[in-house]
């Protein structure tokens, strides 16, 4: 059978993809039409057309702002007939008769509904940042579904929103449930006490759906956008939403879900999660958890397990851990210096602290820890193996001779950024006969002169000649906090330092979680339909590319805003 291909290009006639698809399917149902392509003329779309043998030369020159309609038909008449019906097919979408005014700008929509608190944005990526900026300027929380938003725009917009106490979810945020309302793609789930933060839309859907299935319920599920936990964006939205859920009285257990996070961002977020005091279930893809659980943190290895654990924690009567123990240190110096006599203990300390303290330095670094440029000078958080060869040249090993360590303790204590000192005390045959005797005066002196905390790990038995109970007693009396295992010590340290993290931005007011959602939807009409279907007051903005997509005019308009 022979066929003809005809095309029409409509310059600057923007329509969203759903409209285009509806038009395409209506065109293919017309008599004599074999196939049809209806796209905006981006490079990708034109390539797609070409691959379906639907790109005649006449359409190949179309630009990204051009609506391209291609008809493959059995005859010229059928093709021309189909092209002639484009307008009436497009018009059929709006139900005839009375027209409801659809605002064309965010400003007009907000004027029409001044109580709108959320703006949903799903316009093409290169314009999304402009719309989002306007939303933030107008003081609204943003759910930004669009992808392909430039990274620098994301960072700048999130910082701006955070400084104004606004939530900025996205770009590329697929899923959020706030106050019982699903934004974007979301499942209908029971209300409950589990709050979620996710840099993974389908991850949030999987966990919330599973929670529902298990009989649990969701307080809020806040998406941050897929790039939020990259090193560049640094988890601005994740921190903001986590902080919000930490303060939300309706949220008793928190679930954190993310695509593979940047290590440093993961560390910061885990510290923040520690500081919430609420039980937090963590599932980061492609991430080696430091432990099965750590204080209030619970690590899982699958989305379904994250849901199950959250439900179990609620059923077990989850309670926040005592805040008193960790609060009140926000403005204190927060660097840690660990001075180890035992090499393996220094390694284990790194393992325990690595997920929370970044960058972490050492003269004997494990993977993910940075090597100290000069072992005699510590930087930031540092774990030193004082028994390492380069430090013991010409001296006894620090297991036997405390002098090297005492000198170094004084050196570290004099650094005003240091807030915590960690040391090990290893007893037994061959070791110093009474380490406490030398360490106690040094610790007492340091604690007199500096406002810092000393943590000691004492390894040994009651049978050892140094008498472990006496060692512990004297170290404790000198003001050291003593643990018997490295894990206990590092758990304690990461908890304390989590509480000392500086918090940035203006906290988002809790009423975003309790006020009814009133939304402005800029972009996909399906989002408008699903919001109104949920009974949410929503204004649809009939968005078009600014200045019809004309680059020169857009750039002038941009400069006029300056």
């Amino acid at each position, binding site marked *: 059978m022979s066929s003809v291909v005809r095309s029409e290009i409509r310059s600057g006639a923007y329509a969203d993809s759903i409209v285009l698809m509806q038009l395409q399917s209506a065109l293919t149902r017309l008599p004599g039409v074999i196939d049809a392509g209806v796209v905006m003329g981006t490079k990708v779309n034109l390539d797609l057309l070409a691959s379906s043998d639907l790109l005649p030369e006449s359409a190949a020159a179309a630009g990204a702002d051009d609506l391209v309609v291609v008809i493959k038909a059995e005859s010229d008449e059928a093709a021309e007939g189909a092209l002639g019906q484009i307008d009436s097919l497009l018009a059929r979408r709006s139900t005839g008769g*009375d027209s*409801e005014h659809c605002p064309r*700008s965010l400003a*007009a929509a907000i004027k029409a509904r001044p109580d709108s608190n959320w703006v949903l944005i799903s316009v093409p990526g290169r314009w999304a940042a402009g719309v989002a900026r306007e939303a933030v300027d107008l003081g609204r929380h943003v759910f930004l579904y669009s992808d392909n938003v430039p990274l620098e725009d994301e960072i700048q917009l999130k910082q701006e929103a955070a400084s104004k106490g606004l939530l900025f979810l996205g770009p590329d945020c697929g899923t959020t449930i706030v106050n019982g309302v699903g934004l974007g793609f979301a499942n209908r789930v029971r209300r409950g006490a589990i709050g979620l933060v996710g840099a993974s839309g389908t991850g949030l859907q999987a966990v919330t759906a599973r929670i529902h299935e298990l009989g649990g319920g969701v307080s809020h599920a806040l998406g941050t956008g897929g790039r939020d936990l990259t090193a560049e964006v640094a988890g601005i939205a994740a921190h903001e939403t986590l902080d919000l859920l930490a303060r939300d009285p309706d949220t008793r257990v928190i679930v954190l879900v993310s695509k593979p996070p940047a290590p440093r961002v993961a560390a910061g977020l885990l510290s923040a999660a520690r500081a919430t005091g609420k039980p937090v279930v963590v599932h980061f893809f492609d991430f080696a958890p430091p432990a099965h659980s750590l204080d209030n943190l619970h690590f899982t290895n699958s989305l379904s397990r994250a849901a199950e654990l959250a439900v179990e924690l609620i059923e077990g009567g989850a309670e926040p851990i005592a805040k008193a123990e960790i609060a009140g240190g926000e403005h204190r110096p927060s660097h840690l210096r660990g001075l180890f006599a035992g090499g393996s203990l220094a390694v284990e300390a790194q393992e325990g602290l690595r997920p929370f303290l970044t960058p972490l330095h050492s003269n004997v670094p494990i993977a993910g820890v940075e090597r100290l440029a000069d072992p005699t000078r510590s930087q930031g958080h540092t774990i030193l193996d004082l028994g390492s060869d380069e430090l013991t040249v010409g001296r006894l090993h620090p297991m036997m001779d405390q002098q090297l360590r005492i000198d170094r303790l004084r050196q570290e204590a004099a650094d005003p950024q240091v807030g915590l000192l960690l040391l090990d005390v290893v007893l037994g045959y061959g070791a110093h006969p009474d380490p406490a005797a030398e360490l106690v005066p040094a610790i007492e002196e340091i604690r007199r002169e500096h406002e810092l905390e000393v943590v000691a790990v004492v390894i040994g038995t009651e049978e050892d000649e140094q008498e472990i109970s006496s060692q512990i007693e004297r170290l404790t009396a000198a003001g050291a906090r003593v643990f018997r295992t490295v894990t206990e010590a590092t758990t304690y340290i990461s908890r304390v330092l989590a509480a000392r993290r500086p918090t940035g931005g203006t906290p988002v007011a809790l009423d975003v979680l309790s006020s009814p959602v009133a939304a402005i939807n800029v972009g996909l009409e399906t989002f408008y339909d699903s919001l109104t279907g949920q009974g949410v007051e929503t204004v649809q903005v009939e968005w*078009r590319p*600014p200045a*019809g997509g004309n680059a020169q*005019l857009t750039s*002038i308009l941009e*400069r006029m805003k300056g």
Partner: protein
Amino acid sequence: MSIDQANQSAFERMTSARPILTAVDVAGKVIPDLGERMLLHAGPPIGWDRMSGPLKGAVIGAILYEGWAEDEARAAAMAEGGEVTFEPCHHHQAVGPMAGVISPSMAVYVLENLTHGNRAFSNFNEGYGKVLRYGAYSTEVLDKLRWMNEQMAPVLAAALAESEGLDIRALLAEALHMGDEGHNRNKAGSLLFLKLLAPLVAKVAQDKATEERILQFVGDNALSVLNPVMAACKAMADAAHGVEGSTLVTTMARNGTDFGIRVSGLGDDWFTAPAPTPDGLYFSGFSAADANPDIGDSTITETAGIGAFAMAAAPAIVTFVSGTPRDAVTATLEMYEITTAEHPHFTIPTLDFRGTPTGIDLRKVVELTITPRINTGIAHREAGVGQVGAGLVRPPKEVFEQALIAYAERYEL
């Protein structure tokens, strides 16, 4: 000063202007710089060779009326040969509907803006049928012009001299509450105008026959007040013109060939593009094929925040744009998106007395690709046939784009 501040200032000047109809006088006497052999016309500048049928007809009619030529052929030759100068009404603080031709001996309304002191002028409205503003110049047309200018004008001049002046802004505000939008529908305003004039005319008219004919003429013509209203809008728009940095549109006008705008912060430069043909309803016997491209200075009403911008106030005329009363509301709501603020004096009952959208902002028009709505009459493309319909037109978006680019150049953005 930021653009927003400049626009706010221009908006405040526009809406605080208080145009009062104070006098009727002879154009050549009161209109500044109106030369002896000069004709004013609607819209942006245009030469004889590019004029459309209705404007050419009106020019011939005006030359004949002034007695500069004996017949049509000679009049056309004068116009073509450069013996007559053509300038836009807008360059002389004046406005005229459709062809908008004003010649030196015609009577004009004189509007004074009490707030800012500027004046504005408009010719008289001739009513319906064969009229000069649609390019007709038969004897019957010229006879009616003579009666208006020689018999009616002196009486109206004397009548106005008896008054403190008629507050056209107040009249408009009231008319908007009576179903007018001030451009295509001036039924209520014209009756209010008649009500204000009648006792004054009765007081000064020398004889009953003249009094009767004048009152009958003003009362029969539902567009009587359109011309003073346009002059009032011109006085408001001029008050807003010349604010440094402002992107407020202060002129929209068509000459039947080109559509032109001017912008407050862009001096006296026109930005023009071919005038579109209105969409609308045609009187029986006519169709879109008969329509002339858009013509007239009456778009000064939309420029000042009434006309199509106040469509929600005038549901009775929505059929002109083949719509429903809801569409009338939608039309006004759309115009809020491209304007600076809401008029403090012109309010719309159905919108809970919200002020009309006023002060077209060039930036918003370009950014949102929403061009202003304009309600308009449609002229026959041939001289002298008259009005063939009414409907809706929007300016070509190019004029706003040109102006935006010119703004960027002038202000070195």
